[in-house]
C-alpha cells in the first residue's frame, strides 16, 4: 500500500493581472459602461451588436463607427439558475445566468440576474441593470453588478384597527352564553323565535320585546365537512353544522364535536358542550361544540 499520495496546491496567476488592450470598439463600450451607459455598435448591414465586436461575425467585415445607446432595460431570452454560487460568481446568493436582449439590440449578452427566487425567472422577463456606484466603476462588464427584474407589483399593507363594542342585543345574548343559556327573542307579530337574541325582527321590522331562554339541545338540519385547512379555523376535517335549537325558528352555525365527521347526519339530535363555568367569557367560544345526544334522529 502506498502511503498518502503526494499532493500540493499550485497557483498560476500573473502578478497584477494581464493588461488587455481594448482597441477602439471594445474601449468605447467599456468607457460608456463606466459612465453608466450601454452602447452597441452598428454593422454595415445595419444591425446593432451588444456587446460590440470589432468584426461582424456574420460577414467578417469591420463594424461601422456608429454607436447606439441601447437598453438599459432588456428581455431575458433564456436562463440557467445557480442555486449554489461559487467563489468567482458575481453574487453570493442564488441567482440566474440570463441571456438578455437589451432594447434596441440585435444580439444578446449574458449577465447575472438577481431575481430573488427561481419562480420569478421566465423567458420574456423584463430586467434592468443594477449599476455599481459611479466611484467604483472602472470600465468593465462588472460595472453592471447584475440585472434585476422590472417592478411589476408592490405590496400594499392595508390594515385597519377597530374597537368593537357589541350592541345591546348581542351583549345581552353573550351574558346568557356566559351563564350557560341561549337567550332568544320572540317577534310577537310574526310569532317567530330568533336566536341569538335580537331587538328587531328581520322579517317585519317590529321591535322584539319578549326574551326567552332556549334549551341547549337541538337538531342538525344540514352541514358541511370542511377539508380545507386554515390557520384560523379548527383542525380539518371538521363539521360546520346548521343547528336548530329546540324552540327556535332560525338555525345557528356551529362546530360539531365528540363524533367522527362521517357519522354526522341531517336530523341528528345534539347538545352544546360548554366550557367549565370558571373558564367562560362573554364569547361564543364558551361553546366548545355541539355533540350528539344519542336520541333518535328528528324528522326534518
Amino acid at each position, binding site marked *: 500500500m502506498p502511503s498518502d499520495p503526494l499532493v500540493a496546491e499550485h497557483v498560476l496567476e500573473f502578478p497584477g493581472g494581464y493588461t488587455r488592450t481594448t482597441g477602439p470598439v471594445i474601449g468605447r463600450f467599456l468607457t460608456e459602461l463606466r459612465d453608466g451607459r450601454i452602447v452597441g455598435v452598428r454593422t454595415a448591414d445595419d444591425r446593432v451588436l451588444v456587446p460590440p465586436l470589432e468584426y461582424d461575425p456574420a460577414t467578417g467585415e469591420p463594424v461601422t463607427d456608429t454607436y447606439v445607446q441601447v437598453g438599459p432595460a432588456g428581455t431575458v431570452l433564456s436562463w440557467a439558475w445557480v442555486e449554489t454560487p461559487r467563489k468567482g460568481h458575481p453574487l453570493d446568493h442564488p441567482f440566474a445566468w440570463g441571456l438578455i436582449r437589451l432594447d434596441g439590440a440585435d444580439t444578446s449578452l449574458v449577465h447575472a440576474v438577481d431575481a430573488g427566487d427561481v419562480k420569478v425567472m421566465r423567458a420574456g422577463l423584463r430586467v434592468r441593470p443594477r449599476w455599481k456606484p459611479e466611484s467604483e466603476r472602472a470600465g468593465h462588464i462588472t460595472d453592471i453588478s447584475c440585472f434585476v427584474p422590472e417592478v411589476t407589483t408592490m405590496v400594499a399593507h392595508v390594515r385597519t384597527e377597530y374597537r368593537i363594542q357589541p350592541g345591546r342585543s348581542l351583549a345581552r345574548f353573550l351574558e346568557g352564553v356566559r351563564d350557560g343559556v341561549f337567550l332568544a327573542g320572540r317577534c310577537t307579530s310574526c310569532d*317567530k323565535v*330568533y336566536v341569538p337574541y335580537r331587538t328587531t325582527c328581520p*322579517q317585519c321590522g317590529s321591535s322584539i320585546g319578549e326574551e326567552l331562554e332556549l334549551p341547549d339541545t337541538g337538531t342538525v338540519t344540514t352541514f*358541511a365537512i*370542511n*377539508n*380545507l385547512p386554515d390557520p384560523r379555523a379548527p383542525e380539518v376535517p371538521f363539521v360546520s353544522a*346548521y343547528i336548530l335549537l329546540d324552540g327556535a325558528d332560525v338555525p345557528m352555525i356551529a362546530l360539531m364535536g365528540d363524533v367522527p365527521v362521517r357519522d354526522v347526519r341531517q336530523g341528528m339530535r345534539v347538545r352544546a358542550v360548554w366550557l367549565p363555568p370558571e373558564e367562560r367569557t362573554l364569547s361564543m367560544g364558551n361553546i366548545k361544540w355541539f355533540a350528539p345526544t344519542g336520541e333518535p334522529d328528528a324528522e326534518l
Partner: protein
Amino acid sequence: MGNRCAVIGVGQTKYQTRRRDVSIAGLVREAALRALEDAGLTFKDIDAVVIGKAPDLFEGVMMPEAYLADALGGAGKPVTRVHTAGSVGGSTALVGASLIQGGVHERVLVVAFEKQSESNATWALSTHLPFNASLVVGAGGYFAPHIREYMRRSGAPEHIGTLVAVKDRQNALKNPYAHLKIPGINRAMVESTPMLWEPIRYLETCPSSDGACAMVLAAENKVTGTPAWVHGTAMRSEPIFRAGRDTVNPQGGKDCVADVYRQAGVTDPRREIDVAEVYVPFSWYEPMWLENLGFAGEGEGWKLTESGATALDGDIPWNASGGVLSSNPIGASGLIRFAEAALQVRGQAGEHQVDGARRALGHAYGGGAQFFAMWIVGSDKP
C-alpha cells in the same frame, strides 16, 4: 318598464388566474374599450358610467370607483358604484339599464371587475370578528350545507353535480375568454378530485379569476349595429336571518324571476327561453336554480340536468359560455352572465353560439343566496 333599452356593445378580458401585466385601471379599461369598439363608439359618446365590484376587501382598494373614473372616461360625467355581493355584476347592468329606461341618459357604460389575485377571497369573506366562534369556511363552506339539503330533499343521485362540472368545462373549451380550459374533462377527472367542503369537490367549484366585463347600453334612438333588446329586468333581496327562510329554494329568487318573466311575457321558460346564463359557482346550483327559476318543478331540476337538456345541444342550454364554474372574477361574474345572454341573442357568441337564440336569460345571485338580479334580452324589439 319605461323606455326601450338595448345592449349595443360587449367587451370582455381573457379571464385568468393572474393578470400581472395590468393594473386594476388597465384591466377595466381593456374591457371598456372592447365594448366601445364593438358599439363603434368612444368614451366621448358615453353619458354615464356604472361600476360594479364585490367587497372592497378583495383588493383592499377602498372606493375603487373614484380611482377608476379616469380609466373609464368618467371625468365630468355621473359615475356610480354598485355593490350587491356576488350578484353585483347583474345589478350593475340593471342600474345602467334603469338610467336609460328612466330617460335620464341615452348611452351608459357598465363595467364590472375583480382582480382576485391581489388577495384571497376566502380570507376576505371570513373576517374573524370578536365575540364569535370563527369557523373560516368561506363561500364553499357556506353553500355546501344548502347543497346537501337539496340532495336530501330531491333525492338526486350523487353524480349530478359531476355532470354539471363536466358540461360547463366542455362549453368553456369553446369560449376564448374562459379561464378554466381542461381538455378531455370527464366525470372520472372530476370525481378523482378531493372534497373541499363535502359535498363539494374541487372541480365542482369555480376558479379564482382576474377579469373585467363591460357593456354599452343605449336608448332606442341611439341603437346601432345588432342590438340585444332588454325585455325585462328585476332585482330582489331577502334578509339572511329570516325565520323559515328557504336557503335551497329562496323566495327572493322566485319573486325576482316571476317579475322578469311577467315583464317579458314568459309563461313557460323552458319552451320560451332559448339559452340561459345562470350564476352557478358550485355545480349543484344548476339543478337548484333550474327549480328556483321555474325550468323544472320542485325536486325535478336534477332530472333536467341528467337528461342533457341543459347541454349546449340540449333543448335549453345553460351556461353555453362555461359559466361561473369556468371563469370567476367575482364582481364581474354576474355581468358576464348578462353580457353572454346579450351575445347569444345578437348571434355573436362564436363557437358557443346556440343556433337561433332569440331570447335569453341572464341571472346572478349573491350574499347568502339573498340578492338576485335578472334580465331577459331578445333579438326582437319589445
